[in-house]
């Protein structure tokens, strides 16, 4: 089957969207960008293909008869399989590092400790992927890493092995493991294994084991031919892509927003490094754009800076700000000045939530100025990028849009992080 793929290589995450011949999105994939964009591109492409196989499997199963439950369970169990096989690779890689001369003297003790750590993570794994389990991240590095730290610290203490050595081995190994891209065969095996696990657990599903297996097998055997791939995002220039396969993020975000919401005329995208105001016509073609210049004031990175300054997680900012009773006026959108202003306000005894609300407003004021420079805001308006997930930011934006431009349709999608990749896939489709 012919497919069209768009890959958005962002500064923190890399996203892929896979489309079929009817421009229907079959799969999406996301991974952390690492320092290596080639790997990030390959991994998220593979992830988008996996997503596509799930979609196709779902279509094959149809609805009713507990198919939804089966699908959900398959997905969970597949992730568990994936986790276990990556864990296994991590363990092997760690083992290999033990041959390093500096570990010579304590090789066997280290091996024993590592073995104990990995056995324990393995035992915990099913719980990590249990139904309704809450995972802070979906990336292997994050999940395995945090478990490794916890367990290695305890085991190190108990067995008198220095935690630093274990950590050191882990740090070296995780980079290698992250650079591995699973082959289609490995993925197929993981999918089939995931299905067996799921079938074992399931109740209330009418699909027979044999039918489910046959259906999945068929989906797996279907070749997802990469007819055309388009890359976009900051990392695009470092990709082994020929020039014709590269599109700027501005065009991709414009077209992507149009694909999601065809009535879109103005797009605001706030990414980690830049803020873009984009105007598109009725076909999703960019007619104008403006970006922040020279400094990251008002971009996602600004929020990261504020979070660090307040010693809280980036994702806590929005929820805290939502508790504000009033909006403290923050005058500076300059990252460094805002830090000073923030400390100043805190010292004056102002409420943290109110200050944060003010900071979110300050960012959005900056975005409004970029938008107005790009030609203003017209119906419909679509907000994309990571900051679109921040409730407080969205709130302030809505208020400002209403104040300045009146009642407009404001589109925000859960999939907004894929907007650029979606536009890329649409360009890939059009290129053929």
């Amino acid at each position, binding site marked *: 089957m012919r497919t069209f793929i768009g890959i958005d290589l962002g500064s923190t995450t890399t996203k892929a969207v896979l489309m079929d011949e009817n421009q229907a999105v079959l799969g999406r994939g996301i991974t952390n960008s690492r320092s290596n964009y080639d790997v990030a591109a390959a991994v998220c492409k593979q992830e988008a293909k996996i997503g596509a196989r799930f979609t196709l499997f779902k279509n094959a199963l149809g609805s009713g008869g507990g198919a939804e439950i089966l699908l959900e369970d398959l997905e969970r169990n597949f992730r568990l399989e994936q986790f276990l096989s990556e864990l296994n690779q991590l363990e092997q890689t760690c083992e290999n590092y033990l041959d390093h001369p500096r570990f010579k003297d304590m090789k066997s003790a280290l091996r024993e400790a590592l073995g104990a750590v990995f056995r324990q993570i393995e035992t915990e794994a099913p719980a990590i992927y249990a139904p309704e389990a809450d995972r802070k991240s979906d990336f292997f590095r994050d999940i395995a890493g945090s478990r490794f730290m916890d367990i290695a610290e305890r085991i190190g203490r108990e067995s008198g092995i220095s935690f630093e050595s274990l950590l050191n081995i882990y740090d070296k190994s995780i980079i290698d493991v992250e650079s591995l891209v699973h082959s289609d065969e490995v993925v197929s095996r993981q999918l089939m294994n995931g299905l067996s696990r799921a079938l074992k657990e399931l109740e209330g599903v009418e699909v027979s084991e044999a039918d489910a297996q046959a259906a999945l097998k068929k989906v797996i055997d279907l070749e997802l031919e990469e007819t055309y791939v388009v890359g976009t995002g900051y990392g695009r220039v470092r990709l082994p892509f020929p020039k014709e396969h590269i599109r700027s*993020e501005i*065009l991709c975000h414009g077209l992507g927003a149009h694909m999601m919401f065809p009535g879109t005329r103005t797009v605001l995208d706030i990414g980690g490094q830049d803020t873009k105001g984009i105007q598109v016509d009725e076909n999703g073609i960019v*007619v104008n754009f403006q970006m922040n210049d020279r400094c990251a004031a008002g971009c996602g990175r600004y929020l990261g800076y504020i979070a660090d300054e307040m010693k809280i997680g980036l994702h806590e900012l929005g929820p805290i700000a939502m508790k504000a009773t009033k909006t403290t006026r923050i005058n500076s959108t300059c990252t460094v000045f805002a830090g000073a202003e923030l400390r100043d306000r805190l010292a004056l005894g102002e409420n943290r939530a109110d200050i944060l609300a003010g900071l979110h407003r300050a960012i959005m004021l900056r975005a409004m100025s970029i938008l107005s420079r790009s*030609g203003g805001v017209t119906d419909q308006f679509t907000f994309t990028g990571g900051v679109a997930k921040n409730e407080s930011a969205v709130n302030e934006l809505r208020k400002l849009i209403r104040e300045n431009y009146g009642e407009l349709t404001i589109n925000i999608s859960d999939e907004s992080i894929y907007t650029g990749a979606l536009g890329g896939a649409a360009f890939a489709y059009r290129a053929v």
Partner: protein
Amino acid sequence: MSQQDVIKSRSMLLQKEMIARNYDKITSGEVKVSSTFVPGNLNELLMCFDIANNLPEINAIQNAMRKKSGEMIMEAERSGHSEDVCTYVKADIGMMAKGNIAPNGKPFPDPDVLLLSYTGCFTFLKWFELLREQYKCPTVMLQVPYSADGQPTKNHRDYIVKQLKEEVIPTLEKISGIKFDIDRLREYLRKSAKAEDDLVWMLEQSKRKPSPIDCYFGGVYYMGPIFTAFRGTDEAITYYQMLREEIQERIDKGLGVQTPEGEMGEEKYRLVVEGPPNWTSFREFWKMFHEAGAVVVASSYTKVGGVYDYDNFRHDPDHPLESLADYCLGVYTNRNLPTRVDMLARNIKEYEADGLLINSIKSCNSFSAGQLVLMREVEKLTGKPGAFVETDLVDPRYFSAANVKNRLESYFQMIDQKRRAGGSATTLA
């Protein structure tokens, strides 16, 4: 490609020689020197008094291209000049603080006179105040009214001529000890007009497809002699003749633009550019264009020192002082926004450009004020897309290559997209 590998044509080498000679003249100690500005300068008049012409803006550009302006700007900031001040000014102030060494390695002499024929930029006034403070030399100011109506009026012209007669000429006579001879001025103006004819011929060759020249990156070389110390000289005439022959040769051979790295490939985009270039990363900036196949077919910057094509102005030996007045009034920075819009829109149409690109300069209010409005208006008039990049003149800290490249790429692709949507024939994917 190393600096030596830069491809230089005969005319470029000649210009280099001319500039070097002028610096040698300025620093020789044998002639009187005036500092003055590029837009609306009175070169022919200065020549009537054997006064050499030193241009602080050009010094700043020279220092930027030699990668020296950064330190100079920092030096000026250390002495208290704000970050937002025009960086030409700070490069100049910093250069003075660092010993006032000319590009030929010799110290600049103190000027004998500061001639401020101010056209369209208020920064000039403040700049010369600083220089006057430094040199304590006579300063003569020619007040050039802003062309708020877009066209010079008779009143404006008379006002300037009066000042020339009553202020400027007497002061220059006193400083030089030379009596003003209007026939000498006429002769120089005749020479100016001759070179100006060739200049305009050159500018118009970019109407061809492919364009044999780039009128922004290349244009800043082509405009050099006419806007600086050579207008009115035989050298300028020779230079523009040589340039004309070179360009004719390219046309005959069907060649497109020549860049410092060699011949540009296929001409894919034709642009009109508004605003000064960035001098500290000039080559890098140009490269972003020629790698994409983008040619600048017209630019406003090649008209800062005088607009010759738009209303067909030439210096006129029969009306010497009046024509100097018209010249001062007509330079690009002295024009109002509607005229600038008209000029650019006409360029886009006549040169069949794909759109207008604005290089907005952080510290230049004269160019930057109203630029977005200007872009919108031009878009409306021509139906062609505009785009905006932001850099600086001579401050190396304000050229973000990744940022500029990103925007340019988006712009070129935007043009592609528009072309395809418009159904025009193009092979670009």
